[in-house]
Protein backbone atom coordinates (compact mmCIF):
# COMPACT_ATOMS: atom_id res chain seq x y z
CA UNK A 1 0.00 0.00 0.00
CA UNK A 2 1.46 3.41 -0.92
CA UNK A 3 2.61 5.69 1.85
CA UNK A 4 0.36 8.69 2.37
CA UNK A 5 1.01 12.06 3.95
CA UNK A 6 -1.40 11.32 6.83
CA UNK A 7 0.61 8.15 7.54
CA UNK A 8 3.81 10.19 7.72
CA UNK A 9 2.23 12.81 9.98
CA UNK A 10 0.88 10.11 12.28
CA UNK A 11 4.39 8.69 12.63
CA UNK A 12 5.89 12.10 13.39
CA UNK A 13 3.23 13.34 15.78
CA UNK A 14 3.85 11.46 19.07
CA UNK A 15 5.73 13.19 21.88
CA UNK A 16 8.25 10.35 21.68
CA UNK A 17 8.12 9.22 18.03
CA UNK A 18 9.65 5.88 17.08
CA UNK A 19 11.42 7.14 13.98
CA UNK A 20 13.42 3.96 13.40
CA UNK A 21 10.22 1.92 13.44
CA UNK A 22 8.49 4.52 11.28
CA UNK A 23 11.22 4.23 8.66
CA UNK A 24 10.73 0.46 8.50
CA UNK A 25 6.98 0.85 8.28
CA UNK A 26 6.74 3.75 5.83
CA UNK A 27 9.67 3.08 3.49
CA UNK A 28 11.05 5.46 0.84
CA UNK A 29 7.52 6.43 -0.23
CA UNK A 30 7.63 8.89 2.67
CA UNK A 31 10.39 10.98 1.10
CA UNK A 32 8.22 13.43 -0.94
CA UNK A 33 6.27 14.29 2.19
CA UNK A 34 9.45 14.70 4.21
CA UNK A 35 10.73 17.16 1.59
CA UNK A 36 7.54 19.15 2.08
CA UNK A 37 7.66 18.98 5.88
CA UNK A 38 11.32 19.86 6.21
CA UNK A 39 10.57 23.14 4.45
CA UNK A 40 7.44 23.82 6.48
CA UNK A 41 6.69 26.22 9.32
CA UNK A 42 6.37 23.57 12.06
CA UNK A 43 9.91 23.21 13.42
CA UNK A 44 9.10 20.05 15.35
CA UNK A 45 7.90 18.36 12.18
CA UNK A 46 10.77 19.77 10.13
CA UNK A 47 13.31 18.37 12.59
CA UNK A 48 11.62 15.01 12.78
CA UNK A 49 11.35 14.86 8.99
CA UNK A 50 15.13 15.26 8.78
CA UNK A 51 15.72 12.55 11.37
CA UNK A 52 13.28 10.17 9.68
CA UNK A 53 15.02 10.78 6.34
CA UNK A 54 18.24 9.66 7.98
CA UNK A 55 16.65 6.49 9.33
CA UNK A 56 15.13 5.78 5.89
CA UNK A 57 18.60 5.93 4.31
CA UNK A 58 17.12 5.92 0.81
CA UNK A 59 18.10 7.75 -2.35
CA UNK A 60 15.90 10.72 -1.50
CA UNK A 61 17.16 11.09 2.05
CA UNK A 62 20.03 13.35 1.09
CA UNK A 63 17.71 15.94 -0.45
CA UNK A 64 15.71 16.13 2.79
CA UNK A 65 18.86 16.46 4.86
CA UNK A 66 20.34 19.07 2.52
CA UNK A 67 17.23 21.19 2.87
CA UNK A 68 17.25 20.78 6.65
CA UNK A 69 20.91 21.81 6.72
CA UNK A 70 20.09 25.14 5.11
CA UNK A 71 17.24 26.13 7.42
CA UNK A 72 17.84 29.25 9.47
CA UNK A 73 16.74 27.53 12.70
CA UNK A 74 19.71 25.80 14.39
CA UNK A 75 17.51 23.08 15.92
CA UNK A 76 16.53 21.88 12.45
CA UNK A 77 20.15 21.96 11.28
CA UNK A 78 21.09 19.89 14.33
CA UNK A 79 18.50 17.34 13.18
CA UNK A 80 20.15 17.35 9.75
CA UNK A 81 23.50 16.60 11.34
CA UNK A 82 22.05 13.82 13.50
CA UNK A 83 20.16 12.42 10.52
CA UNK A 84 23.29 12.41 8.37
CA UNK A 85 24.83 10.06 10.91
CA UNK A 86 22.08 7.52 10.28
CA UNK A 87 23.06 7.18 6.61
CA UNK A 88 25.38 4.30 5.81
CA UNK A 89 27.33 6.58 3.48
CA UNK A 90 26.67 10.25 4.21
CA UNK A 91 27.75 12.37 1.22
CA UNK A 92 30.94 14.29 1.80
CA UNK A 93 29.52 17.63 0.65
CA UNK A 94 26.69 17.41 3.21
CA UNK A 95 28.96 16.52 6.10
CA UNK A 96 31.49 19.21 5.19
CA UNK A 97 28.79 21.88 5.03
CA UNK A 98 27.50 20.79 8.45
CA UNK A 99 31.04 20.81 9.85
CA UNK A 100 31.28 24.43 8.74
CA UNK A 101 27.99 25.45 10.36
CA UNK A 102 28.15 28.54 12.58
CA UNK A 103 26.27 26.78 15.37
CA UNK A 104 28.46 24.62 17.66
CA UNK A 105 25.63 22.14 18.29
CA UNK A 106 25.42 21.44 14.56
CA UNK A 107 29.19 21.02 14.37
CA UNK A 108 29.10 18.64 17.34
CA UNK A 109 26.69 16.29 15.59
CA UNK A 110 28.43 16.73 12.24
CA UNK A 111 31.66 15.54 13.84
CA UNK A 112 29.88 12.47 15.18
CA UNK A 113 28.31 11.81 11.77
CA UNK A 114 31.67 12.29 10.04
CA UNK A 115 32.80 9.07 11.66
CA UNK A 116 30.83 7.31 8.91
CA UNK A 117 32.56 9.19 6.09
CA UNK A 118 35.75 8.02 4.43
CA UNK A 119 37.61 10.76 2.64
CA UNK A 120 40.52 13.13 2.90
CA UNK A 121 38.33 16.24 2.67
CA UNK A 122 36.32 15.38 5.77
CA UNK A 123 39.39 14.19 7.66
CA UNK A 124 41.17 17.44 6.90
CA UNK A 125 38.19 19.47 8.05
CA UNK A 126 38.08 17.48 11.30
CA UNK A 127 41.76 18.21 11.83
CA UNK A 128 41.17 21.92 11.27
CA UNK A 129 38.32 21.93 13.77
CA UNK A 130 40.46 20.08 16.31
CA UNK A 131 43.12 22.75 15.91
CA UNK A 132 41.17 25.96 15.65
CA UNK A 133 37.45 25.75 16.43
CA UNK A 134 36.45 28.67 18.68
CA UNK A 135 34.79 26.30 21.14
CA UNK A 136 37.20 24.29 23.27
CA UNK A 137 34.73 21.43 23.74
CA UNK A 138 34.29 21.16 19.98
CA UNK A 139 38.09 21.07 19.57
CA UNK A 140 38.25 18.24 22.09
CA UNK A 141 35.47 16.32 20.39
CA UNK A 142 37.10 16.73 16.99
CA UNK A 143 40.45 15.65 18.40
CA UNK A 144 38.93 12.45 19.73
CA UNK A 145 37.44 11.72 16.32
CA UNK A 146 40.62 12.76 14.53
CA UNK A 147 42.44 9.78 16.02
CA UNK A 148 39.90 7.48 14.36
CA UNK A 149 40.39 9.31 11.10
CA UNK A 150 44.16 9.12 11.40
CA UNK A 151 44.13 5.40 11.91
CA UNK A 152 41.30 4.31 9.68
CA UNK A 153 40.61 6.67 6.81
CA UNK A 154 42.64 8.09 4.02
Amino acid sequence: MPTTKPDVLTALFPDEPDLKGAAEQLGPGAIPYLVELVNGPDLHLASRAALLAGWLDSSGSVEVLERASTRSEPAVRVAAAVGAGKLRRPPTHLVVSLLEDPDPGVRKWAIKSAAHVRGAEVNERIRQIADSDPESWIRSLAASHKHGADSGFS
Partner: protein
Amino acid sequence: MTLPLSLKAFIQAPGCFHSRCVRIHLKFLKEGSGLNDSLRKMRLVFKTADIGVTVASREYLSGPAFDSLLDLDVANGVTITAEMEQLFSNRNFVVGNDVVLYFVRTLSLGAAGLATRSRGVAMLEFWTSGWTLAHELGHVLGPDHPTGEQCSSPPCAAPISRLMTGCGTACIEGMATLTPDEIAMMRSSPFTSPCGQ
Protein backbone atom coordinates in the same frame (compact mmCIF):
# COMPACT_ATOMS: atom_id res chain seq x y z
CA MET B 1 5.81 41.95 60.91
CA THR B 2 4.43 38.94 59.12
CA LEU B 3 3.21 39.63 55.64
CA PRO B 4 0.38 37.60 54.14
CA LEU B 5 1.34 35.01 51.56
CA SER B 6 1.31 36.22 48.00
CA LEU B 7 -1.00 34.30 45.67
CA LYS B 8 2.02 32.74 44.00
CA ALA B 9 3.53 31.65 47.30
CA PHE B 10 0.16 30.31 48.43
CA ILE B 11 -0.26 28.22 45.29
CA GLN B 12 3.27 26.89 45.53
CA ALA B 13 3.21 26.25 49.26
CA PRO B 14 3.74 22.57 50.04
CA GLY B 15 0.98 20.79 51.83
CA CYS B 16 -1.93 22.80 50.55
CA PHE B 17 -4.94 21.35 48.76
CA HIS B 18 -3.70 17.84 48.00
CA SER B 19 -3.07 14.58 49.82
CA ARG B 20 0.02 13.68 47.77
CA CYS B 21 2.68 15.99 46.39
CA VAL B 22 5.58 15.87 43.98
CA ARG B 23 8.44 18.36 44.18
CA ILE B 24 10.02 19.26 40.87
CA HIS B 25 13.14 21.21 39.98
CA LEU B 26 13.40 22.96 36.62
CA LYS B 27 16.87 23.22 35.16
CA PHE B 28 17.26 25.17 31.95
CA LEU B 29 20.02 24.88 29.42
CA LYS B 30 17.53 26.67 27.19
CA GLU B 31 14.17 28.05 28.22
CA GLY B 32 11.19 28.19 25.92
CA SER B 33 8.21 30.48 25.89
CA GLY B 34 5.43 28.01 26.64
CA LEU B 35 6.56 27.01 30.11
CA ASN B 36 3.96 28.80 32.21
CA ASP B 37 1.12 27.29 30.20
CA SER B 38 2.73 23.85 30.49
CA LEU B 39 3.06 24.22 34.27
CA ARG B 40 -0.55 25.33 34.54
CA LYS B 41 -1.72 22.33 32.56
CA MET B 42 0.47 20.00 34.57
CA ARG B 43 -1.02 21.24 37.84
CA LEU B 44 -4.55 20.94 36.48
CA VAL B 45 -4.23 17.33 35.38
CA PHE B 46 -2.30 16.22 38.47
CA LYS B 47 -4.98 17.85 40.59
CA THR B 48 -7.42 15.27 39.20
CA ALA B 49 -5.18 12.65 40.87
CA ASP B 50 -5.14 14.72 44.06
CA ILE B 51 -1.42 15.24 43.55
CA GLY B 52 0.01 18.69 44.10
CA VAL B 53 3.02 19.83 42.10
CA THR B 54 5.51 22.16 43.77
CA VAL B 55 8.21 23.88 41.77
CA ALA B 56 10.97 23.69 44.36
CA SER B 57 13.61 25.49 42.31
CA ARG B 58 14.47 26.94 38.94
CA GLU B 59 18.08 27.02 37.82
CA TYR B 60 19.72 28.22 34.63
CA LEU B 61 22.67 26.10 33.59
CA SER B 62 24.99 28.01 31.29
CA GLY B 63 28.65 28.15 30.40
CA PRO B 64 31.10 25.93 28.58
CA ALA B 65 30.32 22.88 30.72
CA PHE B 66 26.74 22.93 29.48
CA ASP B 67 27.22 24.05 25.88
CA SER B 68 28.14 20.50 24.89
CA LEU B 69 24.87 19.20 26.39
CA LEU B 70 22.55 21.67 24.69
CA ASP B 71 21.84 19.20 21.86
CA LEU B 72 21.76 16.10 23.95
CA ASP B 73 22.78 12.62 22.84
CA VAL B 74 20.04 10.36 24.18
CA ALA B 75 20.92 7.35 21.99
CA ASN B 76 17.85 5.08 21.79
CA GLY B 77 16.07 6.74 24.70
CA VAL B 78 16.58 3.73 26.94
CA THR B 79 20.35 3.57 27.36
CA ILE B 80 21.72 6.27 29.63
CA THR B 81 24.47 7.97 27.65
CA ALA B 82 27.55 9.70 29.03
CA GLU B 83 25.96 13.04 28.17
CA MET B 84 22.80 12.13 30.07
CA GLU B 85 24.90 11.10 33.07
CA GLN B 86 26.69 14.43 32.90
CA LEU B 87 23.39 16.30 32.74
CA PHE B 88 21.79 14.30 35.56
CA SER B 89 24.73 15.05 37.83
CA ASN B 90 23.45 18.62 38.15
CA ARG B 91 21.26 18.27 41.22
CA ASN B 92 21.53 21.56 43.10
CA PHE B 93 18.68 21.98 45.63
CA VAL B 94 17.40 18.42 44.99
CA VAL B 95 16.59 16.42 48.09
CA GLY B 96 15.19 12.95 48.61
CA ASN B 97 12.93 11.77 45.83
CA ASP B 98 12.45 15.12 44.15
CA VAL B 99 12.02 15.02 40.37
CA VAL B 100 14.29 17.02 38.07
CA LEU B 101 13.19 18.30 34.66
CA TYR B 102 16.02 19.37 32.35
CA PHE B 103 15.29 21.64 29.39
CA VAL B 104 17.69 21.38 26.45
CA ARG B 105 17.54 22.61 22.87
CA THR B 106 17.23 19.27 21.10
CA LEU B 107 17.12 15.58 21.97
CA SER B 108 18.87 13.46 19.35
CA LEU B 109 15.99 11.01 19.16
CA GLY B 110 13.58 13.66 17.89
CA ALA B 111 11.42 13.37 20.99
CA ALA B 112 9.82 16.42 22.56
CA GLY B 113 10.58 14.87 25.91
CA LEU B 114 12.00 11.73 27.47
CA ALA B 115 11.68 10.37 30.98
CA THR B 116 14.25 8.27 32.83
CA ARG B 117 12.15 6.86 35.62
CA SER B 118 14.99 5.07 37.39
CA ARG B 119 16.65 8.43 38.01
CA GLY B 120 13.53 10.48 38.65
CA VAL B 121 14.31 12.82 35.79
CA ALA B 122 12.90 13.93 32.47
CA MET B 123 14.50 15.82 29.60
CA LEU B 124 12.49 18.22 27.47
CA GLU B 125 13.14 20.21 24.34
CA PHE B 126 12.88 23.93 25.01
CA TRP B 127 10.07 24.45 22.53
CA THR B 128 7.93 21.88 24.29
CA SER B 129 4.44 23.17 24.95
CA GLY B 130 0.98 22.06 25.94
CA TRP B 131 0.67 18.75 27.79
CA THR B 132 4.13 17.33 27.10
CA LEU B 133 5.58 18.45 30.42
CA ALA B 134 2.78 16.74 32.34
CA HIS B 135 3.09 13.67 30.08
CA GLU B 136 6.79 13.26 30.87
CA LEU B 137 6.28 13.82 34.59
CA GLY B 138 3.58 11.19 34.32
CA HIS B 139 6.14 8.73 32.90
CA VAL B 140 8.51 9.50 35.77
CA LEU B 141 5.74 8.67 38.23
CA GLY B 142 4.97 5.34 36.58
CA PRO B 143 2.43 5.10 33.75
CA ASP B 144 3.54 4.09 30.26
CA HIS B 145 1.63 4.72 27.05
CA PRO B 146 -1.69 2.85 26.84
CA THR B 147 -1.19 -0.67 25.49
CA GLY B 148 -2.84 -1.43 22.18
CA GLU B 149 -3.51 2.21 21.41
CA GLN B 150 -4.09 2.81 17.69
CA CYS B 151 -3.14 6.25 16.41
CA SER B 152 -5.47 7.76 13.84
CA SER B 153 -4.32 8.76 10.38
CA PRO B 154 -4.16 11.69 9.99
CA PRO B 155 -3.19 12.49 13.57
CA CYS B 156 -5.90 13.99 15.78
CA ALA B 157 -8.68 12.66 13.49
CA ALA B 158 -10.08 10.77 16.47
CA PRO B 159 -10.50 12.63 19.75
CA ILE B 160 -7.79 12.00 22.35
CA SER B 161 -8.08 12.91 26.00
CA ARG B 162 -5.60 10.64 27.79
CA LEU B 163 -2.51 12.41 29.08
CA MET B 164 -0.37 9.32 28.60
CA THR B 165 -1.34 8.84 24.95
CA GLY B 166 1.43 7.60 22.68
CA CYS B 167 -0.17 9.29 19.68
CA GLY B 168 0.82 12.86 20.58
CA THR B 169 -0.43 15.04 23.40
CA ALA B 170 -0.82 17.83 20.86
CA CYS B 171 -4.03 16.05 19.84
CA ILE B 172 -5.59 16.45 23.29
CA GLU B 173 -8.56 18.75 23.15
CA GLY B 174 -9.76 20.31 26.35
CA MET B 175 -8.70 18.77 29.63
CA ALA B 176 -6.31 15.79 29.69
CA THR B 177 -7.43 12.78 31.68
CA LEU B 178 -5.86 10.02 33.78
CA THR B 179 -7.34 6.56 34.29
CA PRO B 180 -7.87 5.19 37.82
CA ASP B 181 -4.98 2.76 37.29
CA GLU B 182 -2.68 5.56 36.22
CA ILE B 183 -3.72 7.65 39.21
CA ALA B 184 -3.08 4.76 41.59
CA MET B 185 0.34 4.16 40.05
CA MET B 186 1.29 7.82 40.30
CA ARG B 187 0.08 8.17 43.87
CA SER B 188 2.11 5.15 44.96
CA SER B 189 5.24 6.30 43.11
CA PRO B 190 8.30 6.84 45.30
CA PHE B 191 8.48 10.28 43.73
CA THR B 192 5.25 11.38 45.40
CA SER B 193 4.82 11.74 49.13
CA PRO B 194 2.26 13.03 51.60
CA CYS B 195 2.17 16.80 51.23
CA GLY B 196 4.10 18.75 53.80
CA GLN B 197 6.74 16.09 54.35
